[in-house]
């Protein structure tokens, strides 16, 4: 087995707790896997409490309550209170439409530190169309006001793609209007549902360049008012992103049933087995499980990465993208300009973004069709 390291890894900084995969929305770029976990598989309250105990003991500093839609769970307040009591920094990642003013107040009282609210577009009808939820936009705007009224800091999360990218300026203005202190302008990433819908989502290179200009201009104009996080789509990039800050270095993901993953798309990689909390201790999984060891550090790298001076900057890029494009998760991420497959990736992006977008295949809780070639 390659990838073994002799010393124990540093503890993770953050943990994404997917409390459920249930969600009223059906966004075509959802980061959940195609094969969504069901309600009957979800960890119960006591099990999640134990997971947070284990996370705090391991050295996790931040917990992101996510989903699906985490507010579907009636025990969210109890779990937030428990995590906050352990000294964990608590962040709620929500679509907002199931919240009401009283519940926002209860979450704030439970010790919630921060809310990240998603928005699908600045145009109400388009936002509802992209998310597949009628009336969602209006309820999100209401939720944002309750969040701020409760004294909670707000980040607006705006996934962007070719069907809303022309509205980016208006989306940024909306963040200021809603009194958000941060905005994440996140170009859609192509795994799972996003990969399935890539031809409907991939921007042209000109659209991407324009979006980057818009963000840079707004970042300068709104300095000290709105903080920007900008995630670029790496199909057009020269260097890959340091996916998750490196496999098994800073981050872990818990699925609704308790499976522990190095990233939320890791289940696409065949031959990796993921262990479950709370029956197996989180620290044991983080430090020793073969799935976390497999691509940790630099020992697993192909020669192209191993001999590269950026090997500990981008950590070989993204394993799931290497798999999706080359069929082998242990190859250099083709987003890297040095990858022999990089030209294929760019050609793919240019071809797909140059055609009429096909209809969305909305996220649904059904068995997926066999993977397309």
């Amino acid at each position: 087995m390659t990838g073994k390291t002799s010393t124990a890894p540093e503890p993770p900084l953050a943990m994404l707790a997917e409390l459920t995969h249930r969600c009223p929305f059906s966004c075509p770029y959802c980061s959940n896997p195609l094969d969504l976990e069901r309600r009957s598989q979800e960890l119960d309250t006591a099990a999640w409490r134990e997971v947070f105990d284990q996370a705090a003991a391991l050295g996790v500093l931040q917990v992101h309550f996510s989903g699906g839609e985490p507010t579907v769970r009636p025990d969210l307040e109890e779990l937030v209170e428990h995590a906050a009591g352990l000294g964990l920094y608590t962040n709620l990642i929500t679509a907002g439409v199931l919240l009401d003013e009283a519940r926002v107040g209860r979450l704030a009282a439970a010790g919630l530190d921060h809310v990240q609210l998603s928005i699908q577009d600045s145009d109400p009808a388009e936002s509802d169309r992209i998310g597949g939820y009628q009336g969602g936009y209006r309820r999100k705007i209401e939720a944002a006001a309750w969040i701020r009224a409760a004294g909670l800091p707000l980040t607006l999360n705006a996934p962007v793609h070719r069907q809303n990218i022309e509205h980016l300026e208006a989306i940024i203005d909306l963040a200021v209007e809603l009194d958000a202190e941060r905005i994440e302008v996140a170009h859609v990433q192509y795994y799972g549902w996003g990969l399935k819908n890539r031809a409907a989502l991939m921007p042209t290179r000109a659209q991407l360049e324009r979006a980057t200009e818009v963000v840079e201009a707004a970042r300068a104009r709104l300095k000290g008012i709105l903080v920007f996080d900008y995630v670029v789509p790496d199909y057009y990039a020269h260097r890959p992103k340091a996916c998750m800050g490196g496999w098994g270095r800073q981050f872990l993901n818990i699925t609704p049933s308790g499976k522990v993953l190095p990233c939320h798309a890791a289940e696409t990689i065949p031959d990796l087995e993921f262990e479950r909390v709370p029956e197996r201790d989180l620290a044991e999984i983080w430090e020793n499980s073969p799935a976390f060891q497999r691509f940790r550090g630099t020992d697993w790298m192909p020669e192209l990465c191993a001999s590269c001076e950026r090997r500990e900057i981008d950590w070989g890029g993204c394993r799931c993208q290497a798999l999706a494009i080359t069929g082998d998760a242990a190859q250099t991420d083709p987003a890297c300009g040095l990858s022999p497959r990089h030209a294929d990736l760019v050609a793919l992006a240019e071809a797909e973004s140059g055609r009429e977008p096909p209809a969305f295949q909305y996220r649904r809780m059904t068995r997926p069709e066999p993977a397309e070639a």
Partner: protein
Amino acid sequence: MTALRAIVEDGSLPRLPRHVKLRFDQRRDRWIVLAPERVLMPDEIAVEILKRCDGKTSVSAIVATLAAAYEAPTEEIGKDVAEMLQDLADKGFVEL
């Protein structure tokens, strides 16, 4: 919305907002700052500044304390402290 960028002045009373937490992490044996989607690992000087961001201590008082502690010229320390606080304020880690 009439939001304006806050600028650091000698009389500013910097404080950490409710959602920014300076903590000593036993596991890592160092000070850390927890903020939305961010974990900062501040250096020694930054920790000394952040500890004094209590909403009651002025920038000039922070500068005077540090200048004495590090036996450094007030002017030099003052410039460093103002730059650091302005950067932290622009990123939302400090309120003025």
